[in-house]
């Protein structure tokens, strides 16, 4: 928990004297990778962040988008990887808590939570199973208690996360534009700390998260208390309604050090505070501990003397503590005292702005031969293989996970989890679809194309509900950035995301970088996670019951892009080959025509084709709707391919449409005009899922049997193992 030697020199020269011990603690927290983004900040600027709907204000921890009629949505994404790898329940729960407070800071009510979870191979690895089970419970217990629905996410297992965990949490807020907190402060305003008491939990958490996980440091993990968080949410929204908040920031990584210095720096003010005024859990905490504790459920608020009485009254109602810990000054200094004694007195811009680094990058050696394929063992019985495939942890239904999350509370969830993306109704009659996606297997093989693929997949998922993507959140998770090869993969992913975002004019409204994700056996695979927010003006596509005779149409070509596919990795245990590449123009054509067909009310349901390929996507439709389907593999558009490639290629930009026969003529007219590649490939009916070639059943599964396996296998594995 200290600064690098050159950073210490840098600090000493900037302040012109030797720093005190409290100053060292404050700066070490704020200059940690976690808080300062010192490795990534220079490069993140390449992402487009502006757009017609984007509202930017100083000091916001979340992105804000105007959804019309005087309403806004806010969104943010965070991870809690290191803590969750050590203590999955508390780590995951406090991850939820942190991102919720970011949403609250803007003055909006949190209305949805998303979680992206990644662990080692839970089929073999008992520790991975333990991490998974407890992280899910941690998220459930926290989100459920808050009454904020967890409506979507993803779960993935890969050996690269052995003895480790990625826990990503995103949240969405909603509110009136006029109620947004416009952060401002003037000399003499009061600085108030509201919420839970400051204790010794989470001391040095941000530095802990900015280093490779070598020893289990449980004291760096924060303790969750969702009940206090719920009270804080209600108290703050009441205070917001009474216009009592001038500026607000949540206490997250780096605790008071970061909240105070960043607030002061963003608003160009100084703050003088007294650690004796901070309400603490233990009586003998020293100033250094108080300044860097990452105890949860705390908010920093700037208000004035007149408003304080009303704020006090609200806090009394909810029985939460609120302490005036300092006041605003005009000297741009962060002045920390203990009674009369000065512990730290630093220029806020020095504290809040670490010297940014320009790290070297180099293409990793492993990529040289990665695209070469090896000869695979032929599959003798695809039906048997398919049953194994749909019961595999990555393909199996995640109902065991989302069934533990209250996804209905708030009564906005009009499209429920388990579909391509959930959809929430908003107060202005519009609808919001949102989804997060990642694909480290693709990203490992090609960090640029893999990242673009995640972006496109998340877009596809919201498009399937009829929503137009309006904003993106990115969470870039990589190993140790001091390794030039890892840093190269970070840059490649970022460049790919930037190109896609610019082409589709989807602004990045928020994001996070998490580095030093290293396991005992090496770095994790590059794991960018993309969250997409989509807006529906009129009505979302409510999936309708599929009946006998309904048609199956595919849009988009199936290509020979098997690298990083579940089929290669899970069935053949082979890591390599060419990963799917998004053709931007095709992607746009396909996205637009699908949205058009939904708007014209021609479709019963739409499903995207992704993990596990066409075979899994069609089966998912059949298992969800409990109906069979006959698919002709020779009709699938794209280059001529072997049957396993048609079935399991994970090529992007593909959508499966289900419609009534009577609508096919109209559909074909529109598709022809759009220039999208498409074909009618199947018909629904019967009790079997069949993929046929030359009148032979390549795959033949009973829907009921497949459905039971698909729904139950993850629970069976976790509960009965």
């Amino acid at each position, binding site marked *: 928990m200290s600064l690098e030697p050159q950073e210490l020199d840098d600090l000493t020269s900037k302040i012109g004297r030797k720093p005190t011990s409290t100053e060292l603690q404050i700066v070490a927290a704020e200059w940690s990778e976690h808080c300062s983004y010192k490795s990534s900040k220079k490069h993140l600027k390449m992402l487009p962040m502006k757009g017609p709907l984007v509202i930017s204000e100083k000091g916001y921890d979340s992105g804000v988008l105007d959804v019309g009629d005087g309403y806004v949505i806010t969104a943010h994404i965070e991870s809690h990887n290191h803590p969750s790898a050590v203590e999955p329940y508390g780590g995951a729960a406090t991850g939820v808590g942190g991102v919720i407070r970011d949403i609250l800071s803007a003055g909006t009510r949190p209305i949805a939570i998303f979680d992206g979870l990644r662990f080692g191979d839970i089929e073999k690895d008992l520790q991975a199973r333990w991490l998974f089970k407890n992280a899910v419970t941690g998220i459930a217990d926290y989100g459920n208690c*808050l009454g904020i629905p967890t409506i979507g996410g993803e779960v993935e297992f890969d050996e690269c996360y052995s003895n480790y965990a990625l826990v990503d949490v995103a949240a969405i807020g909603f509110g009136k534009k006029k109620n947004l907190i416009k952060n401002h402060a003037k000399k003499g305003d009061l600085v108030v700390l509201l919420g839970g008491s400051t204790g010794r939990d989470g001391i040095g958490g941000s530095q802990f998260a900015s280093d490779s996980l070598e020893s289990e440091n449980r004291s760096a993990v924060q303790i969750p208390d969702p*009940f206090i968080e*719920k009270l804080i949410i209600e108290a703050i929204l009441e205070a917001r309604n009474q216009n009592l908040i001038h500026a607000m920031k949540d206490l997250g990584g780096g605790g008071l050090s970061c909240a105070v210095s960043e607030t002061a720096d963003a608003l160009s003010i100084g703050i003088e505070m007294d650690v004796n005024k901070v309400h603490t859990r233990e009586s003998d905490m020293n100033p250094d501990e108080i300044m860097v504790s990452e105890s949860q459920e705390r908010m920093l608020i700037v208000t004035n003397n007149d408003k304080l009485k009303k704020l006090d009254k609200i806090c009394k109602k909810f029985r939460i503590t609120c302490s005036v810990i300092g006041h605003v000054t005009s000297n741009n200094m962060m002045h920390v005292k203990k009674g009369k004694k000065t512990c730290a007195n630093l220029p806020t811009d020095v504290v809040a702005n670490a010297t940014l680094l320009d790290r070297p990058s180099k293409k990793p050696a492993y990529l040289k031969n990665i695209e070469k394929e090896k000869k695979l063992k032929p599959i003798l019985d695809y039906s048997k293989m398919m049953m194994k495939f749909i019961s595999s942890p990555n393909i199996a239904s995640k109902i065991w996970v989302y069934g533990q999350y209250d996804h209905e509370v708030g009564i906005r969830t009009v499209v429920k989890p388990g579909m391509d993306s959930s959809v929430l109704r908003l107060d202005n009659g519009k609808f919001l679809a949102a989804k997060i996606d990642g694909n480290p297997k693709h990203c490992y093989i090609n960090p640029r194309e893999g990242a673009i693929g995640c972006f496109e997949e998340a877009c596809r998922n919201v498009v399937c509900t009829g929503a137009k993507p309006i904003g993106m959140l990115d969470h870039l998770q990589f190993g140790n950035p001091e390794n030039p090869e890892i840093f190269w993969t970070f840059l490649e992913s970022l460049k790919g995301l930037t190109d896609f975002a610019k082409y589709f004019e989807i602004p990045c409204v928020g994001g996070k970088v998490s580095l030093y994700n290293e396991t005992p056996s090496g770095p994790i695979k590059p794991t960018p996670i993309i969250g997409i927010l989509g807006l529906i003006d009129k009505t979302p596509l409510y999936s309708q019951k599929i009946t006998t005779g309904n048609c199956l149409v595919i849009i988009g070509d199936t290509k020979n892009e098997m690298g990083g596919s579940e089929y290669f990795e899970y069935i053949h245990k082979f890591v390599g080959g060419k990963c799917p590449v998004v053709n931007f123009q095709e992607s746009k054509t396909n996205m637009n025509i699908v949205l058009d067909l939904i708007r014209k009310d021609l479709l019963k349901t739409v499903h995207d084709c992704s993990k596990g390929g066409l075979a899994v996507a069609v089966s998912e439709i059949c298992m969800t709707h409990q109906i069979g389907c006959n698919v002709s593999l020779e009709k699938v558009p794209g280059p001529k391919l072997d049957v396993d490639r048609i079935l399991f290629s994970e090529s992007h930009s593909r959508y499966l449409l289900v419609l009534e026969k009577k609508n096919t003529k109209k559909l074909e007219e529109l598709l022809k005009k759009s220039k999208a590649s498409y074909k009618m490939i199947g018909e629904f009916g019967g009790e079997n899922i069949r993929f046929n070639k030359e009148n032979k059943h390549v795959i033949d599964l009973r829907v009921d049997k497949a459905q039971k396996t698909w729904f139950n296998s993850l629970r069976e594995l976790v509960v009965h193992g």
Partner: protein
Amino acid sequence: MKIGVIVFPGSNCDRDMYHVLTDVFKLDAEYFWHEKGLPKNIDAVILPGGFSYGDRLRSGAIAAHSPIIKDVKKMAEKGIPILGVCNGFQILVEAGLLPGALLKNTSLNFMCKWTSLIVENNKTPFTNKLKLHQKIPIPIANGEGRYYVDDETLKKLKKKNQIVFRYSEVVNGSSDRIAGVCNEDGNVVGMMPHPERAAESEINPIDNKPSSLIFESLLTTIGVKN
């Protein structure tokens, strides 16, 4: 005509319930913070779901000692319709207004899923527009939703027609698949599933009519003409 929606620290379905009462069924509803008293002109009281006091000690145990519960008890005696949903049901049980106890689900997990109820008593203020044995598609969302009574109490419940709803399937291990009960007079009803999450077609993928009849029953009971 006024319906009181009681808010405890940690209630989180209060706003949903209020929305359904006011925006969907056009009733006059008002929130009452748990430390306040209930005015005399209240015609019905609803205890919404949530995690009062973060489920500390036992779900509903602390909220059952809130100052407002005294007034709720008085109103229960007077025969005023009182409905507890989910955590509200747990609170009514802890307050002794309803028999039984709510235990951890047999899955030991929080469960959020759609299921269906069967109406077993359509004489209460909240079920009088439903048909006996009518099915209600409805979601549950709870960790401690397994209703438990001993055999003797169960016999008594049956005899006095206090079982209001049963699950149509085995959901969480509840005694006799009980999902909702009432007091002997029938004016106090508690249920684990969430009718406020099922009363609008937009959020109910199956059929919102039966759940909306729960609210329409209340409308009829308290004399609001619709």
